[in-house]
């Protein structure tokens, strides 16, 4: 399942391979165009999410059974769901959910991952091994299963799914940070700082972390759309946002029994997910191009 499985790990590899090819001017027009599309879509997502907090054409929760399963028309641009609720309004509200999950889940993964990575880098051989094997185990654990178990323990819901996806992202950031730490620790400027009497803590804080921002940001741009996909998947399974509040994934699940009666019902939420993820992916790719090809050389 995309989002909780492949793209994050494999795109790393892809990025590594593509690095030698990113020469300025090469394929520029295509890259340029995809970056623009990505920007437009991502900004669109952001705007939709923010707008829906203040205005939606209808109340996303207002039911009207008599109007159920309408096709797209003037009154309801995207049609209505099986309770007669306006789909457009629900999809707009769903954007808020997706953005929130993306930010918080990646945030959790990043913060916890960074902490663990630093600890692993500094805590001595033994702790390092243990932590990293733990991270490997977590990484090798089928991520969706992990998220499933966590949501089962703490009950389904938006917060639980955010935490679950966050936890799933921790190993990636932890390993990333640790790898960079090992490399950077031996660099000249760090030796110089040490010679000047800086403590290890200062080295980490003033010299190391700022340099780590770049790769972390790049990883965040990969993890963010994956988090959106993951949340959609969990909601589809009923473990994410609970009814009656809309989430793109749960809307898809609700639309499935009505494929014959109202085929368009199932199309809009899925398209929303795809467009949101596509936009973020393209934007992320573009950012990575900008930030420097060297940055993607990590294993």
């Amino acid at each position: 399942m995309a989002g909780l499985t492949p793209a994050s790990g494999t795109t790393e590899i892809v990025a590594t391979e593509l690095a030698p090819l990113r020469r300025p001017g090469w394929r520029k027009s295509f890259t340029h165009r995809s970056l623009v599309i990505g920007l437009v879509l991502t900004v669109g997502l952001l705007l939709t999410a923010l707008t829906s907090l203040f205005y939606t054409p209808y109340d996303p929760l207002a039911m009207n059974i008599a109007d159920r399963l309408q096709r797209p028309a003037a009154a309801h641009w995207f049609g209505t769901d099986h309770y007669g609720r306006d789909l457009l309004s629900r999809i707009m509200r769903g954007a808020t959910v997706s953005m929130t999950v993306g930010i918080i889940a990646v945030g959790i993964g990043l913060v916890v991952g960074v902490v663990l990575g630093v600890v692993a880098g500094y805590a001595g051989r033994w702790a390092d091994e243990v932590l990293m094997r733990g991270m490997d185990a977590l990484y090798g654990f089928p991520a969706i299963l992990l998220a499933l178990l966590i949501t089962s323990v703490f009950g389904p819901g938006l917060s639980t799914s955010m935490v679950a996806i966050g936890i799933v992202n921790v190993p990636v950031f932890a390993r990333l940070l640790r790898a960079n730490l090992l490399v950077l620790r031996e660099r000249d400027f760090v030796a110089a700082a040490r010679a000047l009497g800086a403590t290890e803590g200062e080295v980490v804080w003033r010299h190391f972390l700022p340099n780590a921002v770049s790769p972390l940001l790049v990883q965040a741009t990969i993890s963010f759309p994956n988090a959106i996909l993951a949340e959609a998947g969990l909601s589809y399974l009923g473990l994410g946002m609970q009814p009656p509040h809309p989430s793109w994934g749960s809307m898809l699940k609700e639309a499935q029994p009505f494929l014959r009666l109202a085929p368009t019902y199932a199309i809009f939420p899925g398209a929303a997910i795809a467009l949101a993820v596509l936009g973020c992916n393209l934007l992320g790719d573009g950012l990575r191009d900008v930030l420097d090809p060297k940055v993607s050389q990590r294993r």
Partner: protein
Amino acid sequence: MRGRSSKAVCDMAGQRPLAKEMDGMRWRRWLVGLLMFGLAVGWCDRHSWAAMPTPPTPGGTLTIAVPDEPPGLDPTTSPAAAIARIVYNNLLEGLVKLNMQGEIVRALAERYVVSIDGMEYTFTLRQGVKFHNGRPLTADDVKFTLERNLDPQTGHPHRNYYESIRDIEVIDARTVRIGLAKPDAMFVFNLARANSAIIAKEEVERLKSHPIGTGPFQFVEWVRGDRISLAKFKDYYEPGVPYLDRVVFRFIQDPSAQLAALRAGDVDVIGVGLSPESAIELKADPAFQVIEGLTTTDVIVAMNNGKPPFSDIRVRKAITYAINRDEVIKGAVFGMAKPIGSHMDPLNPYYVDLNHLYEYDPHKAEQLLAEAGYPQGFEFVLRLAEPYMAYRRAGEIIAGQLAKVGLKAKIEILEWGQWLARIYRQADYDMTVMGHAEPFDIGIYANAQYYFRYDNRTLRALIKEADATLDDAKRRAIYGEVQRLIAEDAVNVFLYNGPYLVGMQKTVHNWWTNLPIPAIDVTRVYKSK
């Protein structure tokens, strides 16, 4: 039983005519019987009679799609309806059973005799009944079964059915006498339920995964996650029956997958779980037939009467007024259900129509709430069980309706195990929506510990009286009162009678047209070419 009295049509709970009648009552019974017959024929006719013409063709395999895989196949240790559906009257039989019309008819007992004071029942078993392992049925099996059901260690889901039994005596190989501590009007009916099936002592261990019974079909295999197969039992005591050679129950949860399987010819019948949207589709298709009938399922909005604010009758009434049942029926089951006004289904002969006791009136709801001290409404938690889509939908619609009068529901969806543990066992809830499939279960309102936590002495006294009354007219009056009391007290909100929807190929015949008990009895079903 000797001679099927006409009075018995649609009579589920009353006594059957017996060898020894209570003399003084004899004429009155006849009169009442005649009257009932007249009413019953007119009412039951359109529901109960299946299409007659084609004579039964023996042979063939019938594949039935059901959504729930049963958690084992032992109906004596689990209340799950999914078990009864597979075993009732197919694999396992009791002394008596219910037929399609909801009548109590003989099964393993050839006849039974009740003493004048109603405290002694003597059952005579049929001749030549064999278990599937070849051993003949004896009265010892009856004694063993009933004693086992009464034993707390067994974990029978409804021990109370047999509580009135004082002693059981085996008179000879075919006769058993059961003595009761007090008259029990529900006794014979309870013996007709799925969890009163007679089992063989030596087969108790395997009952859960390979049941051995006396039914017209025997167990062949259970492919976990896929299906259960049964085959015709050659030594069944009733000649000519069953018609089918094999029956396969396939577990298909997804309504559209069920439909796809039916259309593809992979299954012959969608026995349970035909969703209303699919029923609509199938009805329009000439290659299939759809049965629409009544069940014994009362779908209710259960409220925790022991917990404020639901302990206040004004709040409960307000909620009842605030719910638009027609809209719920339209939204949850596409309009394919009948509303009910109390905890009894229209199939029950004692049913009283109380649908108009509360009409939809959100204004009145708000007034009552203000009176009760909640002018702004309040917040609460609505817990719904995950496996039942119709009840979940009903719950969501109700949440929307209640929000309009200021009652804000937070919806929590629980797995079935959790629902059972938290709501059913511990009453840890505010409000929930559930269908109660057990026939004639209005007695649960007399149990203050039942998850409704409704404690009403008057009601308890009424039920107790009804259980001890063997006179039909008296019972009818009492149950009428009970229904009215429960409805007026707004213990729960009574939504609708769970629809009985079955979709099948045109070649299938003799399927039950109503569901007086959760079962899929295929004894008399056959397939034409």
